């Protein structure tokens, strides 16, 4: 028969060892858990990559005349890199001023055309209409045409291609 003190010591010893086990277990879980969970949720915190592409010499464009242009962008999908063609509309306003629209109608993403007779952009899918400055003239589009960032680099027009969310009033990156 153990004395009361001995039994108390035994319980204290067990509790102490229990703490050591929990501490070592917590150490293992933390050291392994942070990299494991971190690697799993990492894509959610990955910033978007910019996609600056050269469209061509600024002299290729006529002032006041919208021109449909295709740019080839590199899309990184994990470890797979693919190049993809994207349509844009380029409007030369002056020798050093451009407006570049994404080639997708902001309603549901169809490609739209320039109607030279009416001086407006018409979308053949659902009848969306835009003015030369991108404002909605009629039809379902919820916002003006999406403009893209541009700059001139050694006589070439360079644009930043981006996709935006469709069907919403705000211009937000997709």
């Amino acid at each position: 028969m153990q004395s009361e003190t001995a039994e108390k010591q035994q319980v204290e010893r067990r509790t102490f060892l229990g703490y050591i086990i929990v501490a070592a277990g917590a150490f293992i879980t933390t050291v392994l858990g942070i990299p494991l969970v971190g690697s799993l949720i990492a894509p959610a915190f990955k910033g978007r990559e910019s996609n600056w592409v050269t469209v061509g010499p600024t002299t290729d464009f006529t002032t006041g005349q919208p021109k449909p242009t295709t740019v080839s962008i590199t899309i990184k999908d994990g470890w797979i890199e693919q190049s993809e063609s994207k349509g844009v509309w380029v409007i030369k306003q002056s020798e050093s001023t451009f407006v570049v629209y994404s080639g997708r109608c902001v309603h549901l993403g169809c490609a739209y055309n320039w109607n030279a007779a009416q001086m407006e952009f018409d979308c053949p899918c659902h009848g969306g209409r835009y003015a030369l400055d991108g404002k909605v003239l009629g039809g379902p589009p919820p916002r003006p045409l999406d403009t893209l960032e541009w700059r001139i680099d050694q006589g070439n027009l360079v644009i930043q291609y981006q996709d935006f969310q469709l069907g919403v009033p705000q211009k937000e990156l997709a």
Partner: protein
Amino acid sequence: MTTTAPSSGPKPAGRLGQVSGWLVERSGATGIWEAFFARKVPIGVGWLYTLGFASMFSFIVQAATGLFLAVYYSPSPDHAYDSIQFIMYQVPFGAVVRGIHHWSASVMVVLVILHMATVFVLGAYKYPRELTWMLGVGLLAVTLGFSFTGYLLPWDQKAYWATVVGTNIPGTLPFVGDFVLRVARGASQVGTLTLTRFYAFHVLLLPASLAGLLGAHLYLIVHHGVSVPPWLWDSVAPRVRAVLRHREPTPMAATREEEYHQRYEGFKREGHQFWPNIIVEDTLAAALVLLCTIGLMVTLGVPTEGPADPTDTAYVPRPEWYFMFLFQFLKYFPGNLEWVAAVVIPSAVLLVILLLPVYDRGPNRAPWRRPLAMIAGLVMSVVVGYLTYVAYQ
């Protein structure tokens, strides 16, 4: 089986106590507690006995890191290398996860071998633990299978060439060589089909095999209890004799087996409860293993080579360190007898190890009373050590 909460387990009060009480009753946790955590472990069980748990822990580390690597890995020659590069340089913590997986593989081999060596030296494979040993040898084989199949997956130069050579080895067997080689590769050459089959083996077949063998191994460890160190078992020291005489005088045992069980019960009665006395050593050993693994990764880095290039004639493939002795061993045999060195002798050695408890049934467990076994073990260690040493010169 009782339905009361374990006496030595935590007993939270109030609502928490109600919830835990519900869980304990519905899950049958008391049974698990009594059979596993509250079981008595004989006296004399010390740090040497943590090697088995440490081996299992390194496997758990491999399973956990492997699971997260699989999230990003692509088992196709087109993308395998790029996906590894992606893990290394694009995924935050990716290099750490892969580094731990890489080094933990080596650590696991070391621990498994040390565990095995301890069991051998202490004669713990003898009655009644023969089957536990055999399952352990199976676990060793599966561990080496993991190494071999895991090697190819990064699809870099070392991966490709080590597998070309590794699969050519059974290809030198007379009559069945070509068949075995084609089955191993899934084709006549190492390529897409080799990668997918190695991947399937590495992440599905081998883990399932290991889980099965390990489950049986653990069951037997609990069933038979861990062995008492031979120096205590054979000891005539007053303290040990007192243990055996404690309380009940044992009647004369009719057989050696009965005598064993009576004696073992004596040691067990005086031993410690598994929780927390033994688990604390196991957990601390596991933490140390993890620290060593990370230490290796930090000091030696995470090796990466160029992508696999089947046209490279300058590359000299060398296996991982634990296969180096075999690599060196092959050099001593002429080409037409290579299969003897590469397949027949290693298989024979593995069989000799597997069947050890079948032919070595002497009653003595202390190493100093088993000179023949100790000499055999020593010779084998020296040969393997020497071949490994020479291979690195």
